[in-house]
């Protein structure tokens, strides 16, 4: 198995606000940088949908391997925010 196969995507759809009408968001703040160790539940970043700010928790403990969507990037619901390599 290659190293890439072990990585897990952080999915923007997982914490989409229930009452949002739109399927577009924008990344507002990253709180961790690539290579950081994360624990399940740590706030990775926040994005905004309509006027609601959403915190994205780490889905598992591991390393923040790659950030796909940087601050100010716009995206569609379901796009991959980042990849985590589990411990």
């Amino acid at each position: 198995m290659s190293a890439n196969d072990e990585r897990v995507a952080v999915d923007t759809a997982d914490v989409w606000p229930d009452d949002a009408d739109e399927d577009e968001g924008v990344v507002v703040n990253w709180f961790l940088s690539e290579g950081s160790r994360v624990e399940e539940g740590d706030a990775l970043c926040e994005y905004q949908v309509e006027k609601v700010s959403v915190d994205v928790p780490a889905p598992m403990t591991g390393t923040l391997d790659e950030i796909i969507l940087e601050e100010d990037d716009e995206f569609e619901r379901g796009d991959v925010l980042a990849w985590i390599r589990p411990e």
Partner: protein
Amino acid sequence: MAQEEPERRGRQTDRSLTMSRAMVEAIAHEMRDDDEVFYMGEDVADYGGIFDSTEGLLEEFGRDRIMDVPISETAYIGAAVGAAQAGMRPIAELMFVDFFGVGMDQIYNQLAKNTYMSGGNVNVPMVLTAAVGGTYNDAAQHSQTLYGTFAHLPGMKVVVPSTAYDAKGLMHNAIRDDDPVVYLFHKRLMGIGWLPAPDGPKTGVPEDEYTIPFGSADVKREGADVTVVTLGLHVHRALEAAESLDDDGIDVEVVDLRTLVPLDTETVRESVAKTGHLVVVDEDYQSYGVTSEIIARVAEGGLDDLEAVERVAVPDVPIPYARPMEDEVVPDADDITNAIRTVRSNE
């Protein structure tokens, strides 16, 4: 549990926070430690503070300790003063510092003076937080930066953070202080989605508690040719100006005051003794303000060190609503750059 320490320390260096989150982290920590700490203000509970100053606190602490209040600054700031005198540690939020007028008797005549007027029989261990600053077209009643007004009135300590790291340490210190502290946060530094911050204020912030003592200015950039003394948002604009002058061989030192009362005159004087050239920058009105106070303090103690001086502040007009006009009166990095060039023009 001691073996967990190295790992936790390692994680602290990874994490950066916005200024609002750093403030909230300190408040939550103090509220967990001390049941007497509570927060009251307009839209601080369900809304989380219109500038995210209390985001998430209601969920953990409930409505008895995170309290929405009616729009009556006199009533709730007065209530906070009374609670503080009775032994509690209130934090009261003045939503926009511009609203100070309706609550000023409570701020100026009660909060600031009661320790003195009671001969030390009561103290007022409360924090008054307030949002300051413009640059987002909110007009003359919602855009002021009233550093001078609060620093001028004796009896209150006045705190103005410019980074998340400073904001957390200063907030811990403010809540623990037995005297009234006015904690002024600039809206544009908070890191909220609809009001983007410059890159500077988001910094690494340790998860553990720490305090930053009042009266300790921070040299945010070392330099040999010109001292820029500033605070709040304009620390970042001064750093941008300093960066742009680097190519021209002008080496700029940026001193972040961090607190106005007490004021770290010594750090300012030491810097001017080194550079000989002083530029003071703030976002308050120019006359009778921070810029004049800093220049006076340097002149009093070190006139011989001072070769040239410039100040950059808002001209004595209410902040305009129109975007081009607001941009004209609020100092930006170019205004600071020009002032630095002017102060060096006799070289």
